[in-house]
């Protein structure tokens, strides 16, 4: 494997005695799509929250391009070039679609508070640039004509696309997608898959949490299977689909399993 962008080493997360993530290790390389699958409550979203610094890590180490992410604030993690989307659409619903994407470029310009207050030309220039990039990002998902809609007024599928556009407009090195396909119809899912593959081609590393097995099998380079916070398998799609432990966890042979 070439240079690992993201690397988790024995990462654990303990929520008041509940072990949500248990000594998890895996890595994502440049231009690679890694998927995390597992039954509900397996700790998939927790892994995303640990990487982005929303929750502090209990033990273990998270490295991004060799730099420790432990103890960093979410905005610091994001500044290193890590973007994410959220499980149930993380858009700001009371502002417009365009403004949402523009927030995604907040860190692009470095104009200070003072020069913003004074309305210096450099600030206007930066704003123009942010606006131009945001509009072209909306154009790639064919939603340019809905740019002035409040985000809340878009269909669920469109909201998901806008959120994806907002996450990638800043051209991150690593993209975390939390169930991007949930609630999408077949056409929308196809569109999503094409977008994700295009991003991979550009060299983005992508970590994907998903339930749609068909989509995962089609686009993943590597799959990590979690059950009760514990990694029970890891490998390429063909291996995973034949792994007996995975089948047990998913079909819920053990009666204590939450199932899916």
């Amino acid at each position, binding site marked *: 494997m070439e240079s690992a962008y993201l690397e988790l080493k024995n990462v654990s997360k303990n929520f008041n005695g509940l072990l949500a993530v248990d000594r998890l290790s895996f890595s994502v390389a440049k231009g690679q799509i890694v998927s995390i699958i597992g039954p509900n409550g397996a700790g998939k979203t927790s892994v995303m929250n640990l990487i*982005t610094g*929303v929750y502090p890590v209990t033990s273990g180490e998270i490295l991004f391009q060799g730099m420790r992410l432990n103890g960093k*604030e*979410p*905005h610091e993690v*994001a*500044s290193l070039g890590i*973007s*994410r989307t*959220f499980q149930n659409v*993380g*858009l*700001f*619903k*009371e*502002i417009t679609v365009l*403004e949402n994407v*523009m*927030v*995604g*470029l*907040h*860190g692009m*310009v470095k*104009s200070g*508070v003072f020069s*913003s*207050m*004074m*309305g210096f030309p450099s*600030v206007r220039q*930066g*704003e123009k640039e*942010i606006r131009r990039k945001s509009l072209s990002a909306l154009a790639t998902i064919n939603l340019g004509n809905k740019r002035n809609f409040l985000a809340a007024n878009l269909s669920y599928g469109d909201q998901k696309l806008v959120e994806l556009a*907002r996450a990638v407009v*800043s051209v991150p090195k690593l993209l975390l997608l939390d169930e991007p396909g949930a609630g999408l119809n077949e056409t929308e899912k196809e569109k999503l898959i094409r977008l994700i593959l295009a991003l991979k081609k550009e060299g983005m590393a992508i970590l994907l949490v998903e339930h749609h097995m068909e989509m995962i099998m089609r686009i993943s380079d590597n799959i990590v299977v979690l059950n009760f916070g514990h990694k029970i398998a890891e490998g390429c799609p063909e291996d995973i689909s034949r792994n007996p432990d995975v089948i047990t966890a998913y079909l819920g042979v053990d009666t204590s399993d939450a199932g899916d």
Partner: protein
Amino acid sequence: MLIGFDVLVGYCGQLSLGHNAFFAIGAYSGGILAVKYNFHHPLLAMAIGIGISLILAWMIGVPSLRLKGYYLAIATLGFGLIINNIIIGMNALTGGASGLNFIPSFKMAGLTFDTDIKYYFLVWFFVALILVVTLNLVKSRFGRAFLAIQEEETFASMMRIPVARYKLFAFLYSAVCASIAGTLYAHYAGTITPDGFSFMISIHMVVMLFLGGKGTIWGGIIGAVFLKLLSESLSSFQEYEMPLWAAIFILVLIFMPRGILGTLQGAFQRFDLRTIQEGK
């Protein structure tokens, strides 16, 4: 004062109930320096008031703004009451409950603002200044960041927005605006008493902002003018002031949750949308 308050409440979604204190600090800075120390540079006095407000706002803001929710409202409520009591207690400097008298007129750039008309222009000069600065601010990337923070801090932080620092900045900014208003008021009124800076001021600010339309900047001005006119015309019912304000607030929240300006904007947008659709 309301313009700065809108940045905090309308954009960042953080509620403060202690802005009467910053108003008072500005007023007493101007008053005490002029009356007790014969210091006749109101602009410098204003700067000193701003400095004191900034330090105090920072002390309250740092711990309470790291948390989500209404901690700032509770902390500032206490702060407002404390400052009011300190003003009453520090008799020698502040004149205690009976207040400070004979505060001279505002002087700036060789001009003395001693009549109502002159003062009117002075106040609008500052309002315009703050208005321009604030509009620039909220139209920049920072305004968008503030709105994002108001909706969901976790999402905002993933957009590389340092949430705690921005909330603190909005709070400091609003404190500065309140302090400026305080100094201007002291030199205008000539007399200031602790009663004039009670907790009710903070409540009035909230009602004015919601009536005018929060998150619109201009809304604060509209709300202030509207409610000032209303309370002047109803001054014969002074003992009913509290319930009256409460009633206005509740009615605004029920029938115009976006305030006067917000409701008008909404109406225009709907109109726009309809003409676009019909045009097709």
